[in-house]
């Protein structure tokens, strides 16, 4: 027992990721934690999307299952699991069966390198960002095979659209990412790196989030990525592969029940994954806001209180809504449930005030908060924009984002190397 505690303590004091330290036990724990957290995030995202979208559209959204529909995603999950698993008679059964798993695997595997904090990642790969882009691009294989295996026209068109879309936007995405990798190397403090943790540490060393570096070049790169990532995850306004008004449901038209829910799971975790890339590359990853301006220790304290305060605010919201619940006896269970939820949130908030916990989860909190901001953007887009047409989508990808990305890359290199270039030119002049 004592040895175990010592083992755990030795990790807690380590400054490496479990994968980096070759610590299989902690790596396993982290994998489980990350995937459990991811599943919870997807469930929460499901509820939040419905609620936020509903409130944007002057309606209430789910209200029946649990207080304010809090248990709706769970009810939906149970429904989907209990549904009949239909494989169309003319479908290619094996491929049809495998396709959703490819998508889910691709969407989940990328989280191996997502850095939630300097030590809070499953592992830190030398090729982190390359790995993320590569593995997330594998999901297109699942989508294409799903559409093909359904042996039906709408899924096939959806799959063709989807593959063309994802392949074209990957190019623009890659260019934006490369410009960031250039930024990690173009300074005095650090050498270039592809590692996700290394990129955030480069931002820390340079005292600047890359979105602000070489203004406005960082911002443009971020913009390209922010557009491309929406297309990459097939979300509105680029949700052509599953445009319900055109192709009924696109590549997953023939899927139902559990298999469909896998696509759903993959879509949302892919959204979280690309948002994590954007946060890591441009928004300073786990760094708190203003790491360069507000550096005094009191500011550290203030910012470390944020997680606890956030949870307390959420708890307060729960209690406020508990008070607003109808007093009818029919709502008794719901009222108690909501109050209980508020108590749980409040307790978490109080625990987060403990210094030992506070300092350790601070990174994770800021990372999650930034990702959550992106998630809100996704929902906002969906509530606001009409859908692009296929040729327009391709036009945006190839004729706008790609040239901009190329120009950005060249400009970043020039701006980053300006002193060396200047010295070189002077040398040529003197000669």
């Amino acid at each position, binding site marked *: 027992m004592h040895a175990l505690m010592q083992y755990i303590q030795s990790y807690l004091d380590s400054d490496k990721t479990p994968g980096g330290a070759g610590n299989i036990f902690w790596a396993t724990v982290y994998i489980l934690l990350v995937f459990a957290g991811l599943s919870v995030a997807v469930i929460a995202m499901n509820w939040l999307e419905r609620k936020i979208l509903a409130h944007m559209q002057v309606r209430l959204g789910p209200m029946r299952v649990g207080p304010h529909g809090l248990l709706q995603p769970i009810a939906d999950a149970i429904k989907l699991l209990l549904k009949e698993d239909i494989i169309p008679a003319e479908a290619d059964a094996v491929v049809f069966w495998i396709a959703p798993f490819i998508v889910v695997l691709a969407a989940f595997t990328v989280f191996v390198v997502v850095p939630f904090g300097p030590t809070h990642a499953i592992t830190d790969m030398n090729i982190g960002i390359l790995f993320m882009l590569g593995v997330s691009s594998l999901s297109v294989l699942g989508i294409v095979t799903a559409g093909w295996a359904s042996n039906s026209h709408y899924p096939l068109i959806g799959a063709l659209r989807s593959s063309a879309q994802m392949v074209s936007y990957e190019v623009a995405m890659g260019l934006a990412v490369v410009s960031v990798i250039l930024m990690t190397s173009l300074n005095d403090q650090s050498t270039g790196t592809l590692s996700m943790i290394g990129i955030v540490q480069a931002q820390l060393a340079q005292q600047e989030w890359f979105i602000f570096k070489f203004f406005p070049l960082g911002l443009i790169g971020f913009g390209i990525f922010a557009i491309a990532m929406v297309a990459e995850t097939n979300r509105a306004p680029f949700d052509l592969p599953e445009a319900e008004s055109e192709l009924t449901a696109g590549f997953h038209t023939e899927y139902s029940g559990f298999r469909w829910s896998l696509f759903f799971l993959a879509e949302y975790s892919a959204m979280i994954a690309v948002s994590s890339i954007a946060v890591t590359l441009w928004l300073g990853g786990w760094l708190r806001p203003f790491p360069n301006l507000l550096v005094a220790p009191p500011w550290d304290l203030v910012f470390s209180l944020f997680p606890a305060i956030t949870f307390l605010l959420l708890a307060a919201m729960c209690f406020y809504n508990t008070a607003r619940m109808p007093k009818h006896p029919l709502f008794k269970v719901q009222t108690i449930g909501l109050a209980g939820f508020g108590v749980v949130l409040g307790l978490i908030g109080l625990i987060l005030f403990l210094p030992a916990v506070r300092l350790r989860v601070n990174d994770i909190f800021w990372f999650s908060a930034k990702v959550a901001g992106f998630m809100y953007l996704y929902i906002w887009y969906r509530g606001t924009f009409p859908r692009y*047409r296929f040729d327009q989508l391709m036009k945006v990808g190839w004729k706008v984002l790609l040239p901009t990305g190329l120009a950005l890359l060249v400009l970043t290199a020039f701006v980053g190397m300006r002193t060396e270039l200047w010295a070189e030119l002077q040398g040529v002049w003197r000669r």
Partner: protein
Amino acid sequence: MTDPTSLSPLDLETPDKTFLDANELVINMGPQHPATHGVLRVILRLDGEKVMGLECVIGYLHRGVEKIAENRTYTMFNPYVDRMDYVAAVSNGLGYCEAVEKLLNVEAPPRAQYVRVILTELNRMASHQLWLGTHALDIGAITPLFYTFRDREEILKIFEKYCGARLTTHAFRIGGLQYETYDGFEKDVKTFVAFVRPKIDEYEELLTTNRIWLERTKGVGKISGKDAIALGVTGPVLRASGVKWDIRKALPYANYKNFDFDIPTGENGDTYDRYLVRMAEFRQSLRIIEQAVDHIPEGSIMAKVPKVIKPPVGEIYHSIEAPKGELGYFIVSDGSTQPYRIRVRPPSFVNLQALEVMCRGQLVADVIAVIGTLDIVLGEVDR
């Protein structure tokens, strides 16, 4: 390859050369499809995503309304017309009642005329709101649907208060109105006008200058004024092609000639212009309602109509400007209590003919946009 926009008829036997020279993809869009506004079935011949030709198959909602009329008295048939264009039931009723009145040679009293105009214009707005919501939904903007339905609800509330029904209103009778307006009708209408005016700006804020909306609608489903006239297209679709034709002005019925309003027209005849025309019609309808509601005269609501309606032998064609276009009733009377034949000229049915011309050479996504912009109601197409 032939010019895809030419007016040649659809030739399903000899497929055009396509990518890989293979036969093109034939897709059945509908009858169960979320974006065909009911049970329209469109057989699309695609080259990749490009529409090489299409054919509409209708009749999935055919109920034989015209045939039913031959076995009903003129009064009994009145509720049936509500079931044709069920989102603009009031307009249907107005057209039918006026046609029979014309046949009987009676005229509804002024008070009834004013109430008729108010209700019809309210119904036009309700119809356009439904069109806007579903059209935007087809193009991918999901939010306008809920906004328009929220505001359409107010119109339906007025209908419900007036005649007890929300959708199939059966508001008018041959010779006038069955019900006197309820207390506070004018106030309700005025409140609604004040309520809805900023809401229309709200819809426009969401869409009119939205870049994606512009890209999706500008230049899509173009039809020239000449083609539109040749195909018999009417209503906002015709007006968006630059033809200033509105039966309310051209062949005034009810008492539209007493009101001051404009006919909004477009220039390019594309989906965006049709959108703009309909948005302008919202405002014109509000103008008409405002003028009418202030001047509802006192008096009777029913003209002198015999208990048993037995029009003289003869035939009559009467058309009105329904929200979707020219709605005409051709009634042949053999002097009995039942019409010998009723033929309805439904605007959706005729406008649907233009679908092929508008869609040739466009992409699948545009077919959806064009079906939406034609504003068809399958209940009316199939009757």
